[in-house]
Every structure is written in structure tokens, then in C-alpha cells.
């Protein structure tokens, strides 16, 4: 297609692209290289709830369930808020009004806040608040609240984009028929864009599952099955953050196995949403 000289001139770009693509492979290689025995994977999913890596007990299930449950609870808290916010921004707030621009900017800024600041806020404000009601305050509830505060602005921006991609005729027709905001939202807009909304929620779920700092500061970090809202629990990311600096040999290998499982989990979510997106585009 091209002359050789053309390829030569473009070769630095190809090299860069090759490096970028190889990062994913490199991550896999590096993480797998620290796992002593990949075949021991079943030992990590024994459902006995015992994570004592220095005693050779590596059950990851309580942490896996806690990770998922925190993310799901946070989603449950933030989805209604984000839907209302997104709807308000598009259909109710005055376009280019001071208030709507302010809220929009606030949400944008907030979605990029450092997670460690959320953690600090959770540790010094939310946990003592819950502890007043029931000690010690660390646990699923605190983690889910902090995580919800963290992902809801992100989710609002995604939902807003989802709603905006619905045709404007929908709103015009509904207006001329005199349909209320509530009916329009619940009976027309949400059913119409449900696929995209689910996909956005999955993206937020992925972000919640991978969150480390905010949760490690408020979860209490005891390895427990998440059977209770106020019992301290530990997530996979929490175990890595807490133990990595101190882990050697088999313990370190176990943490990399935990990381590997987390990696696979988040890639799985990424692939699922990717598929949906392409089907959606094809439609």
C-alpha cells in the first residue's frame, strides 16, 4: 500500500502503539510471575471464611463477597440519585442558568476527586456518626455510603450522556401530550434507554469493585462474610493495600492471586459492557 520510506517514517508511532497494547500483557505476566502455584486456585475458594495466609489458609470468598456487596449496595444507593440528577440537568434545570451550570460543574469536579479524600471524610465523619448508633462504625454500611458518594457523580455524568442520546422527539411528543415528568421518566425515558443505563451502571460497578483507598479506611478490614450492615469487613483491594508491604513468600503470592482474581473480575465486567455497546451500535 505504501512505500517503504512511509512505513519507516511511521514506525515510531507503531512502536508506541505496540508498547501501549503490550501493557495489558505485561500486567498479566508480572502478576502471574509472582504467583507461586496457579494450580492452587481452588484453595482460594473454599467457602470456610478463613484468610490466614501465614498459616496457609487462603479463602478469598468472604472478601470477594464483601467486595461485590459493597459495590452493589453503593450502586443501589446512587442509581436513584444519579437518575434524578441527570434528568434534572437535562429536562428541568434552565439551560445555561446559573444554578444548573453550578450543579453540573460541581458534579464534574466531584467525580474526579481523589478517593483518599473520600476515605478521610468517611473515617472522620461517617464512621463516628455510625459509631454513635452502634460501635465500632466501620463496616459495610460506612463503606457503601462512602463509595456511593464517590461513584454517584460519575454515574450522573454517564446517565446524562445516556439520556442525551435519546431522540429529542420523545420529549417533544410527551410535552405535547401533557405527560408529567414522572411518567415521562419512568414510562418512556428509562425503558427507552435501559440498555445504556445498565451498561453505565456496570461501568460504575467495575469502578466500585476496584476502589481501594476510600474503602480500606472505613471498612474495618476484618475478614468476615458480609452478613450484617455494621460488621467490619475486608475487600480484596483492602487486603492487598493492608498486607502487601509486609508480605513475603507464600503470603505475597496469595496477595497476587487475590489481585489476579480482581483483575479477571474487572476485565470480565469490561468485556461484558463492551459486548453490549457493540450490539447496541449494531442495532
Amino acid at each position, binding site marked *: *500500500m*505504501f512505500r517503504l520510506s*512511509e512505513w519507516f*517514517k*511511521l514506525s*515510531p*508511532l507503531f*512502536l*508506541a*502503539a505496540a*508498547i*501501549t497494547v503490550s*501493557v*495489558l500483557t*505485561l*500486567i498479566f505476566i*508480572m*502478576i502471574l*510471575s*509472582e504467583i507461586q502455584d496457579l494450580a492452587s486456585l481452588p484453595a482460594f475458594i473454599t467457602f470456610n471464611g478463613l484468610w490466614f495466609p501465614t498459616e496457609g489458609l487462603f479463602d478469598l470468598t468472604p472478601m470477594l463477597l464483601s467486595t461485590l456487596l459493597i459495590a452493589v449496595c453503593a450502586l443501589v444507593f446512587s442509581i436513584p*440519585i*444519579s437518575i*434524578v440528577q441527570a434528568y*434534572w440537568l437535562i429536562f428541568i434545570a434552565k439551560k445555561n442558568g446559573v444554578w444548573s451550570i453550578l450543579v453540573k*460543574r*460541581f458534579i464534574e469536579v*466531584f467525580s*474526579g*476527586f*481523589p478517593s*483518599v*479524600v473520600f*476515605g*478521610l*471524610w468517611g*473515617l*472522620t*465523619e461517617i464512621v463516628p456518626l455510625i459509631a454513635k448508633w452502634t460501635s465500632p462504625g466501620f463496616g459495610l454500611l460506612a463503606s457503601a455510603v462512602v463509595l456511593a*458518594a464517590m461513584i*454517584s457523580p460519575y454515574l450522573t455524568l454517564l446517565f446524562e450522556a445516556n439520556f442525551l442520546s435519546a431522540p429529542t422527539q420523545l420529549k417533544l411528543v410527551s410535552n405535547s401530550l401533557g405527560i408529567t415528568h*414522572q411518567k415521562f421518566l419512568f414510562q418512556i425515558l428509562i425503558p427507552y434507554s435501559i440498555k445504556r443505563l445498565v451498561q453505565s451502571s456496570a461501568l460504575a460497578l467495575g469502578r466500585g*469493585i*476496584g*476502589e*481501594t*483507598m476510600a474503602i480500606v*479506611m472505613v471498612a474495618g478490614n476484618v475478614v468476615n462474610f458480609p452478613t450484617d450492615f455494621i460488621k467490619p469487613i475486608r475487600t480484596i*483491594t483492602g487486603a*492487598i493495600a493492608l498486607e*502487601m*508491604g509486609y508480605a513475603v513468600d507464600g503470603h505475597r503470592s496469595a*496477595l*497476587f492471586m487475590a*489481585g489476579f482474581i*480482581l483483575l479477571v473480575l*474487572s*476485565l470480565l*465486567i*469490561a*468485556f461484558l459492557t463492551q459486548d453490549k455497546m457493540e450490539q447496541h451500535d449494531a442495532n
Partner: protein
Amino acid sequence: MRISSSILYLGLIPGLWLITCTLILGLPQLRLETFLISPSDAGRAGGLLSIIISTLLILTITLVISVPLASATALAMTYFRRYFLKLSRLLSLSLDVLSAIPSVIFGLFGNVLFVEKLNLGHSILSGGLTLAFMILPTMVRTLESSYHEIEKGYAKTTEALGINFSTFIYQIVFPLGLPALIFATILGMTRAMAETAALLFTSGYSDRMPESVLDSGRSMSVHIYELAMNVPGGDKNAYLTAALLVFILLTINSAITYFGYHLNKRLGIL
């Protein structure tokens, strides 16, 4: 409707609470010494000088590595999108997947590759390199969409003039995409500044003044974590650091809005 408006306000509460809390508890601690001396007594006393320097060094390394890499990759993707569509789909899939990887995994990756295998130790260099790879997908994604717009706009003209694709990319797409590059750089910078988990196992947490990039250095976000978790009586300075970090991010964010606006205008999107 009353229910939904209360939900709307409820949704804004955590944000307002957090920002007020950060500013009220943090700013009264702000003094001139904060910028002139390094922390002492595990961060309970002293300033933030060494922390700020470490943060700047980490950021510099991150950007020095990621900006050229990201722009070259984005340009390559523009090329693939024109001549090898399948390949460009594969590339963008791998970028999407890469951006979905939790930052703590990047921390593990950086710990194995840079700290141990390349023997850089817990250092500013290891941390910066790790962050560079972490922000790469976001930057490439942002750049690639702008480059694509430019490429579409000028494709017919360049074809008619018989300009080589390499010349087109280097002399038209890249210079016209400079505002996008700045935008992507700032975006990457905010992500890098906000990051903690990836730095914990790569740049270490020594709060001393780094003398070279091979020294361990503590970034502002890690400083917040250390003060909040491991230093009794460290809350006040944790909030001070948080207030400063938030202030910097707010400033950068305004810059993003500015550049984003002008970028869109330039590309004719607005």
C-alpha cells in the same frame, strides 16, 4: 415531584459536606511554613515542602513518559482507523479493557516490574512510571477522538493534494491537535495527582526531601492516607493536605473546562 427534588438535594449533600469539611478543617492550618519546610514528627508538625516536591517529581516523570507515548499511540490509531479498521477496533478494545483495571493492580504491576525486576526500588521513578502506564488509556482515548475529527476534516484535501500520510499526520494532524494534547495532559495529570493505591507499593512513603528520583518519596495523596490512618493527631494536617490537593485539582479542572471549550470550538463541535 417533591420526592425527586429531595433526592436531588440529597445527592448533593455528600459533596457539599465533604468540601466544606475539607476546607474548614484544612485551611486554618495553612501557613507560609507549609510551603517552606518539610514535615516533622511524622507529619503532625512542620510543612509539606518535601511532599509537594515529591508529588511534582512523580508527576513530571509520569507526564514525560506518558505524553509522547499517548500521542504517538493516538496518531497510530488514526492511521489504523483509516487503513486497518479491524486493528484499530482491537486497539481500542484493549484500551477500554486497560482503563477498567483497578489502580491497585497497577500498583502490584509496578511493584513487580519497576521496584523488583528492574531494581529501581521504592522510588519516585518507580511510582512515576507506574502512574504513566495507568493514565495512558485515558489520554490515548481523549487524544484519539480529537485526532480522528481532524483527520476526517482534512482527509479529502490531503488526498487531492497527494500528500503522504506520514506528512499528513506529522505536519497537519499533530499540530492541529495540540490543544487536544494539552487537554489530555491535564486530564492525565488530575488522575495521577488523585492516585494513591498505585503509589503505595511503588514510590514508598518516606516523607523526607528526595535527593534524586531514585529516592523514595511520598505524594500528597499518600501523605493524606498516612496521616489519616497511621498518625494519631494527624487529622488536621491530613485535612490541610487534602484542602491543598483539592484546591490544585479545582484549578486544573477549571483549566480543563477552558481548554475543553476552546478545543471544541476549534474543532467546530460547539
